């Protein structure tokens, strides 16, 4: 049956493409000047690191910086399971620890910035939230991060320090999800990082509260032990730790470590 051969050949060709395609994604085609640097970073670093990545690309012609932003815990899990990352920037020492404990970090992580929580309310502030103690008021819809993720752990600590008991309407899976519910007006208030409230612009108002000092998150950064591009990884970390990085982080509302 002559009709069968082309179809079979096409199947085989497709398989070949899939198989070879899978092995080719690590940026292994890079020569000395170019290549792709893969940075895994906490979701709260999205804006800052994106702009730092552009600076890095401008300073290293031919180099592409690829980011994987997400919840620190899932990023840490991806790295310990062998995801091809060069740099990991986590939103908490605890999530970084899972990577260092697994022997997947090259050298000790360095804390490069700190973030604190603010109360995020919709621009019109329908719940009339002024202070942290307002969060326990019945009838208000409050959303927090789940305790399993760093922003939730920080929220628990801050609320504990303030002696406030909150009955949240939802425990979201990351800080951006909390922000979204506040931004859409579905929640009257939420606890997010100061930088997230700032990134949301005029749609969200961030209210500082003194107890947030009890729950400041340190952000550690480390080179991944099996980094495909170790030299570039070192340079990127140097950029983040240097003056340029400090400036960008300060502009976004981060604090110096």
């Amino acid at each position, binding site marked *: 049956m002559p009709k069968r051969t082309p179809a079979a050949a096409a*199947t085989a060709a497709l*398989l070949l493409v899939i198989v070879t395609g899978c092995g080719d994604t690590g940026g292994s085609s890079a020569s000395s000047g170019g290549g792709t640097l893969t940075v895994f970073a906490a979701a709260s670093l999205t804006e800052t690191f994106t702009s730092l990545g552009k600076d890095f690309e401008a300073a290293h012609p031919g180099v592409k910086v690829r980011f994987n932003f997400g919840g620190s815990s899932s990023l840490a899990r991806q790295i310990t399971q062998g995801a091809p990352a060069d740099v990991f920037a986590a939103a908490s020492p605890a999530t970084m620890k899972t990577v260092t404990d697994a022997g997947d970090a090259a050298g000790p992580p360095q804390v490069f910035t700190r973030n604190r929580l603010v109360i995020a309310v919709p621009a019109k502030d329908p719940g009339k939230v002024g202070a942290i103690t307002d969060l326990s008021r019945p009838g208000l819809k409050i959303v927090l991060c789940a305790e*399993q993720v760093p922003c939730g752990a920080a929220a628990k600590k801050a609320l504990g320090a303030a002696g406030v008991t909150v009955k949240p*309407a*939802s425990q979201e899976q990351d800080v951006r999800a909390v922000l979204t519910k506040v931004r859409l*007006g*579905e929640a009257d208030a939420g606890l997010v990082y100061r930088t997230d409230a700032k990134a949301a612009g005029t749609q969200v108002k961030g209210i500082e509260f003194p107890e947030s000092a009890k729950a400041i998150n340190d952000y550690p950064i480390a080179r991944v032990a099996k980094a495909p591009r170790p030299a570039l990884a070192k340079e990127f970390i140097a950029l983040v730790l240097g003056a340029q990085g400090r400036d960008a982080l300060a502009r976004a509302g981060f604090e110096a470590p």
Partner: protein
Amino acid sequence: MSPPVNPSARPPWILLLPALAGLAFLVLPLAGLLIRAPWPTLGTRLGEGPVLEALRLSLLTATLATGLCVLLGVPLAWVLARVPFPGVRLVRALVTVPLVLPPVVGGVALLLVLGRRGLAGRWLDEAFGITLPFTTAGVVLAETFVAMPFLVISVEGALRAADPRYEEAAATLGASRWTIFRRVTLPLVAPGIAAGAVLCWARALGEFGATITFAGNFPGRTQTMPLAVYLALETDPQAAIVLSLVLLAVSVLVLAALRDRWVSAP
């Protein structure tokens, strides 16, 4: 309706090889789940409060969502199958959109319409004080949204396959259209409705994206099994495996129950 098979024909290796690779690709991850499961502590882990709570909520919401799907989906399927009207193709396409729509998008859409500040939700809130996000009702709605197409497709197919002569005979005997629907059509397509409902239930049970977007995540109120799996993975992967096993077992049971109607149906 299966094509004639020649049992003595040996499949060519060029087809057999990718077929086996495909089979391995689909089955190995499930096998991995079984191999890595913490079998010795499975019983105690399943009995833990949060797991039971998520399981209970999942069963409850999936069942309610299925009920809602049957209530709304059967008449919808009937209209699509039996009432000729202009634009029926478009409506049929729209009905099946949630099948291919990313569930998160469905959740966003629900939030924009039924949320507290949404188009209809604002009115619900002001007039009746009803808000749907962050409630168990919100979970049911999210699940209904993604599951209903399965029921409509299944029932519409059954209606098209049903012999119209029974309905015609009933009409010549003087039965009203409602009576015909109730006494003739419904019993005729009952197996189709049952199959659709089971499928619907399984889909609702596995719903993640629309639920977490629209209803949020709160243990005991909106945290269903898939959400619990996702969050457990952050801190306690073993618990995530246990929860996943439960969902896998349910899925396999549902497919086994539907073996004849769905898996080998034309």
